[in-house]
């Protein structure tokens, strides 16, 4: 799993699940906070599909934290102001970088759960797909 995949799962997971994973790491390894959770802004950069220019749409609030675990740094950035979550995510990232993260099975379970939820919601939207039938008068044109 790459950083994007792991952070996507953790950012969407229940806070208690993320806490449990971070607690399991902290029970065996010492994690030191290098940069305490802090709010800042992230600007959304898009490409305009009409003229292919880059532009800024607007900002989101993110929280960021950095921890160190036995010499390995871990960083987390996530939308919102949930400082506990971002700190737990930084601990998990540091554990990954240190090579001591052992809960990939749990991450995969969460990913499947999230994928299923998104697919169910998508099905709800797809129920509103229109099936057009040409009327006689239109077909005649």
């Amino acid at each position, binding site marked *: 799993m*790459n*950083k*994007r*995949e792991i*952070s*996507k799962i953790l*950012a969407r997971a229940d806070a208690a699940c993320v806490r449990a994973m971070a607690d399991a790491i902290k029970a065996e390894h010492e994690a030191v906070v290098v940069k305490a959770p802090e*709010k*800042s*802004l*992230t*600007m*959304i*950069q*898009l*490409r*305009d*599909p*009409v*003229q*292919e*220019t*880059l*532009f*800024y*749409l*607007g*900002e*989101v*609030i*993110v929280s*960021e934290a950095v921890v160190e675990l036995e010499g390995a*740094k871990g*960083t*987390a*950035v*996530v*939308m*919102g*102001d949930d400082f506990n979550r971002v700190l737990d995510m930084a601990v998990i990232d540091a554990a990954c*970088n240190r090579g001591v993260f052992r809960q990939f099975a749990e991450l995969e379970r969460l990913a499947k759960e999230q*994928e*299923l939820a*998104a*697919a*169910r*919601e*998508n*099905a*709800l*939207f*797809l129920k*509103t*797909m*229109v099936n*057009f039938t040409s009327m006689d008068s239109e077909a005649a044109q």
Partner: protein
Amino acid sequence: MAYVAVSGGEEAIEASIRLLEYYRSGTEMDLELEVVENKLSLLVDRVMSEAGLYSRRYAALALKQCEGSVEEAVFLLRAYRSTLKRSYDTRTLDTASMRIVRRISAAFKDIQGGQILGATYDYTHRLMNFSLEHEDAPALQSRMREELARQNPVLPEPCVRVSDSLKEEGLIERFPLDETPPFDVTQNLLEFPASRSARLQTLARADMGFISGLAYSVLRGFGQVHPTVGELRTGYLELEVPYLQNESESLWIGEVLITEAEVFNAADDKDQLKLACGYGIIFGRNENKAIAMAVLDHELDQGGDYPSQNEEFVLTHGDSLEMNGFVSHLKLPHYVTFQSKLDAVRKTRRKNHE
């Protein structure tokens, strides 16, 4: 006439601010932010869009703080964001990859990926639903959750754009990728002629009423009349930032709900061989604003004598904070300037009587 320093008013001002609390005290019931976020989501969307800051929770809080005033809520969010530093720009996003929740076209009935109505008020009867006066909210939530659980899962698939096929046919112009760093209107003073990036950012943040009214003027004949909505889509955009310890990796930081519109217009090139396009994109679900933005984008490309075609007119008068600030300042004391106006009138009257 001279300047006169005045003091006093502090106690009255404090009492006035306390009186705002009085206006929010008419009930013992609290307005939970979760309720505002989830049940007034279109209002929350509008505030986020005009503030240029996507934060559902803070937009709900701002609305609660100012009795639901959009311009005050925008002011609060803008003021708050100015206290925060900016740490990141996201990786460049392409909205083609969005997770779609609604997608329609007024140009073609059959579009690749299909037309998905999603949630829309377009087909509702505009009749008051008095049963909502005493709604069983927990029952509504559990009913929807059960419906969701009954769905056969279908993985979301990105949809190609309607304009892509027209570009392939050469009916819409293709532009080369432009890597010029975007102009940022939050950090630089807008200059004219404005870059396209400045235009799009300004319109995305603009007051909905202002740009809807301008777009309406275009449709009524004060502009290039009737564009066709080639595609209107609403969906979730996933945001990523570089992972600073190894920039070849990214961190997924969350997703934002956006609405995007592409409008097609009659050919405006020299040879009349290509359709012209306008583009609009905004935070949240606010289709009319996205369409209005796309209409104005094209009008500004077009140029001309109508207000909607005048870049400075369109881009400098639609910012919620600036327009409301300026109009609002009229009610603040202008004792000295008004006295001089009075003096001038009195002098003229005296002269006329002499």
